């Protein structure tokens, strides 16, 4: 295996395109080094992007949104007070990934590129309407986060393509998000089910809603019809139980060691309902 440490994104992509065999990009390494260790993916070339200027920076753009560099760690997100205040759901999703040791290294982009349907940070990024900047040999493009996962362990990224940053839109008043998951322990586990909700309100009435379900399908599920039944409401108990039933109906989980299909369908409704309530309360308080 050859190790490369380029000083620009263009150089990183050029190395990738001119190398033969399996090429992997390295940011936090909390998935890549585990795969290397257990031998599931053994790259011929490893391209470390952490020495590229700006890759560990969170910046506020002129349009009021945030750009998060590809190697920004979970701990950096949590420590960023303004970002945590505006996007608490997104930040708490990432915060649930692993221990303090993992949080020092693990990244949003890595969690996305690993392609797990149970990735805790991905539902939050999708409901936020986040996009990723992708660099390839023909230039840069912007792609919605929801278009990246394509199945268990796989993404829509082509060979050599590199995600350089995540772009969050501007946060407006009376908007709020939340992410909740179910695990049988209190810490250090992989989601049995997960759900992120993002709501916009006007005078307490929901004007738009986005709901994403995690770990209940081969990739994250955008629950459009469940989200639609929240719009125009103030989230009363009747609506919440309809919403909960809808989420259970949309979920298409498998049975595995973490939970049966039946259990997952049941529990996703409960978790989704709680996440919606939390997002609503945050939206009310965000002004």
């Amino acid at each position, binding site marked *: 295996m050859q*190790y490369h*440490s380029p000083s620009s994104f263009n150089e990183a992509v050029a190395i990738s395109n001119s190398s033969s065999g399996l090429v992997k990009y390295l940011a936090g*390494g909390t998935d890549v080094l585990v795969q290397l*260790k257990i031998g599931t993916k053994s790259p011929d070339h490893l391209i470390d992007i*952490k020495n590229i200027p700006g890759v560990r920076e969170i910046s506020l753009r002129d349009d009021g949104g945030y750009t998060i560099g590809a190697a920004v760690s979970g701990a950096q997100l949590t420590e960023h007070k303004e970002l945590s205040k505006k996007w608490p759901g997104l930040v708490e999703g990432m915060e649930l990934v*692993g*221990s303090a*040791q993992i949080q020092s*290294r693990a990244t949003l982009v890595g969690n996305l590129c690993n392609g797990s349907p149970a990735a805790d940070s991905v539902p939050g990024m999708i409901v936020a309407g986040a996009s990723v900047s992708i660099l390839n040999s023909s230039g840069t493009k912007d792609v919605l986060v929801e278009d990246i996962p394509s199945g268990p362990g796989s993404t829509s990224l082509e060979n050599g393509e590199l995600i350089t940053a995540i772009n969050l839109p501007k946060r407006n008043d009376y908007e709020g998000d939340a992410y909740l998951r179910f695990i049988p322990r209190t810490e250090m586990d992989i989601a049995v089910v997960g759900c992120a909700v993002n709501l916009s309100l006007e005078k307490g009435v929901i004007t738009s809603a986005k709901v994403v379900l995690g770990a209940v399908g081969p990739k994250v599920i955008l629950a459009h019809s469940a989200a639609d039944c929240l719009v125009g409401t103030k989230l009363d108990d009747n609506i919440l139980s309809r919403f909960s039933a809808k989420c259970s109906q949309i979920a298409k989980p498998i049975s595995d060691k973490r939970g049966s299909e039946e259990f997952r369908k049941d529990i996703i409704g409960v978790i989704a309902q709680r996440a919606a309530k939390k997002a609503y309360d945050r939206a009310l308080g965000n002004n």
Partner: protein
Amino acid sequence: MTKIHVKTNINGDKVEFLADPRETLLDCLRDHIGLTGSKEGCGTGDCGACSCIFDGDLVSSCLVLGVEAEGKSIETIEGMAGEKELHPLQKKFIEMAALQCGFCTPGILIAAKALLDRNNDPTESEVRYWLAGNLCRCTGYDKIIKAVMETARDIRETA
């Protein structure tokens, strides 16, 4: 396999070594530099026995490549005690018998130090969550948590 010449700083000392790019920082610490205080429990970032401070961040050194150490500053368990005295956490762990076999202890001490360096007044819950990435198969954790809480109190009282 071509080895890479790495220049780094460990516990305040300039250190150079040759690393195969596949070797983890933990492999390099133990096999090239002879610092065997950091332990390998799982090798996949689950157990925390290899915890080190890497450029100010608490990491599992089994999830960092040795070649990534170039130009960085690393703190390991070997650098925790002062020249004449143990670190207050080390003293308290001995006093309260917050260990049994000792395999997880270096990682737990490093992780606990990283916590107390940034927050010398953590709640019990904060200590438990912070140390959730450090597995101990002997103690049942209670003595460890109590030792960390008492050290924090001592630090606050002497500050």
